[in-house]
């Protein structure tokens, strides 16, 4: 047990490395360096993955909110369109690659209640990581009652059906971004239980697979 994390949860990453191998590192080179994208699209992906603009865009896509003094509605639509264009021109991710995403405390409980067969989508650009640890670090704790312990919801996306995405490595994160409204189907749910002091800690691992569609 490390910092309240069940030991078995640490093992998720090992298998992922074996499955992914090196092809993922070639995606961005293939797309950006071989002329598949305009300079504007490349700039938008950089802006999304390296700055704070992702929050602005995703708040707009989820809630329709625009921050005064920042990008206008029209600029946000263009920002989204360029990112989507970049993703659409990217090569398909190999089948069976795992992408992790930790869910914040506002939605963790509802998403943990999804069932097998349910289809899931997010209106926002979907930021994921090939690193389990990164995905877990983004998960925020949620509680039902204090006596029920602390809960985290972590999505395990499994690629299939020619799923597209852009890999944009940076120093602190191996992020893969996917199109808004990408449709995933829940295949299984796994509850990993741990202990933090006297408090029970639960990790809800929700596995979803690509459907090849959009909501």
């Amino acid at each position: 047990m490390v910092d309240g994390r069940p030991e078995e949860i640490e093992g998720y990453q090992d298998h992922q490395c074996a499955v992914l191998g090196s092809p993922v590192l070639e995606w961005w080179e293939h797309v950006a360096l071989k002329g598949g994208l305009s300079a504007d699209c490349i700039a938008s992906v950089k802006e999304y993955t390296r700055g704070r603009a992702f929050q602005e865009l995703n708040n707009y896509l989820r809630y329709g909110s625009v921050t005064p003094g920042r990008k206008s509605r029209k600029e946000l639509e263009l920002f989204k369109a360029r990112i989507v264009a970049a993703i659409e021109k990217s090569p398909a991710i190999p089948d069976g690659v795992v992408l992790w995403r930790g869910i914040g405390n506002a939605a963790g409980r509802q998403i943990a209640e999804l069932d097998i067969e349910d289809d899931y989508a997010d209106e926002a650009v979907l930021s994921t990581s090939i690193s389990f640890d990164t995905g877990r670090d983004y998960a925020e704790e949620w509680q039902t009652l204090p006596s029920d312990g602390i809960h985290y919801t972590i999505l395990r996306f499994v690629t299939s059906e020619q799923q597209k995405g852009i890999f944009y490595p940076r120093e602190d994160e191996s992020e893969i971004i996917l199109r808004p409204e990408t449709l995933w189907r829940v295949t299984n749910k796994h509850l990993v239980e741990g202990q933090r002091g006297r408090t029970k800690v639960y990790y809800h691992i929700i596995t979803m697979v690509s459907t090849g569609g959009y909501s």
Partner: protein
Amino acid sequence: MKKDGRFTGEGRKVGHGKITDAQIAAVKRATGYEPDIPDHARATPKSEPAVQAPTN
């Protein structure tokens, strides 16, 4: 969850559907084991008897 069934952020349930053999294979490849999916959720139920040619 909001009244219209949409989550308050970070995604929502948008429907449901059967899980195909290809999707199950992808999960198995990724995780190292076949997910425990009930027959009713499978596009091809596991317990479905194989079609056999007449034997007369």
